[in-house]
């Protein structure tokens, strides 16, 4: 058992496998690997209730953000608009389904899955951590967390409708509406949620029990 105690006070760098002595940190500070500079750990803190609030707000915002058009153009009297998902379908329809799938996943599907997953994790942490099923589900969700947050690219999408608006203003009148606003709000809420979320802390919940 001496061995277990010994590696409680060490961390391994994930990039270079260096053994580093673990020390207590003040809350905004992040420990870096002395050899390769990779972020090792920070004080795992996250407010479960704060995350719950942000998560519900983001999920509510998700629907108008994806049902209302993100961009609208007026061209010679006709009006055309599109949502993120319709845009993905449009390229898919042209036979470019690789592009369509990539856009649909990174702008719509992954953000929705990520939000649902965090909501489920928060609920388990609050109410069901003592149950075996709760722990099992939490473990499964945490394993997918890294992939889901990598696939979520709302910040890039927000920039892309600004770029499109400027490019199209060459030919036509471009309008942004409620959909644009909701999508930007969704991005901001998710940004704050991901800042609050700490994967190491969530794994820690499984350790204590």
């Amino acid at each position, binding site marked *: 058992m001496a*061995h277990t105690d010994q*590696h409680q006070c*060490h*961390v*391994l760098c*994930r*990039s*270079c*496998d*260096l*053994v580093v002595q673990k020390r207590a940190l003040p809350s905004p500070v992040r420990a870096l690997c002395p*050899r*390769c*500079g*990779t972020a090792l750990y920070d004080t795992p803190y996250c407010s479960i209730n704060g995350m719950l609030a942000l998560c519900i707000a983001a999920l509510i915002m998700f629907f108008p953000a994806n049902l209302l058009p*993100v*961009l609208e*153009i007026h*061209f*010679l009297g*006709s009006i*055309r*608009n*599109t949502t993120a998902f*319709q*845009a*993905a*379908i*449009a*390229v898919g329809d*042209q036979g*470019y389904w*690789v*592009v*369509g799938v*990539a*856009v649909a996943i*990174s*702008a719509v599907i992954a953000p929705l899955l990520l939000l649902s997953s965090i909501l489920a994790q928060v609920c388990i942490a609050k109410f069901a951590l003592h149950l075996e099923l709760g722990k099992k589900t939490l*473990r499964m969700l*945490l*394993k997918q967390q890294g992939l889901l947050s*990598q696939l979520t*690219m709302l910040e*890039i999408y927000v*920039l*892309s*409708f600004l*770029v*499109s608006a*400027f*490019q*199209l203003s*060459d*030919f*036509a009148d471009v309008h942004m509406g409620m959909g644009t606003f909701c999508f930007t709000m969704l991005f901001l809420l998710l940004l704050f949620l991901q800042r609050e979320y700490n994967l*190491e802390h969530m*794994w820690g919940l*499984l*350790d204590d029990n």
Partner: protein
Amino acid sequence: MTTSSSLDNQTQIQGMNKGLCLCKVCRKINLTSNGSCTRCHAPLATRNYASIGQSWALLITAVILLVLANIYPITLITNRGVVTNDTIFSGTVHLVKTGMIPIAIIVFTASVLVPWLKIIGLAIYLTAISFNLPVSKKKLMVGFHIIEWIGRWSMLDLFVISITVALVNMGQLLDAKPAPAATAFALVILLTQLAAKVLDTRLLWDRLEPQNDAK
């Protein structure tokens, strides 16, 4: 010099030599002898030696596709009956000509600079591991983290194409369609992200000689 490096050898112990291993999935320290992680039950591996070969294969495929993505047109624009093929590069040049310099810079960075930098960076990284090049490992690692982070920004171009195609669809008057380079470009993003993800960076620190970082 020798004292400092021997001192380094004493203090810089690899987890592998202590019989410890970091879980790739949940980042918990485990005893290598356990076989699988005590927290998330994922199988443990001290090093993934096959990852260099896999990463090279993904990278070479990505290079070929990136060349194709730059040669072939990425969008087909019909404006009052006139059809223009835009490649990634000519699209950026067009933006510069119409005076939208800030937008041109954003598009150029996301669709030209980032993919090429990423491929060159990964190639340097893999060459350094494969052939033991005398390069500073610390600098390589910083570069690697930047590559991991900027790679996703190339998606910008595909988002813009999808929005444009969905909006601009008015027959002979004005029409935008994706062209073959779009698929190649999407695959480049996917393959380069995978090449970086697959690679076990710990191998760099096992193989290269410590003297390159002694200064």
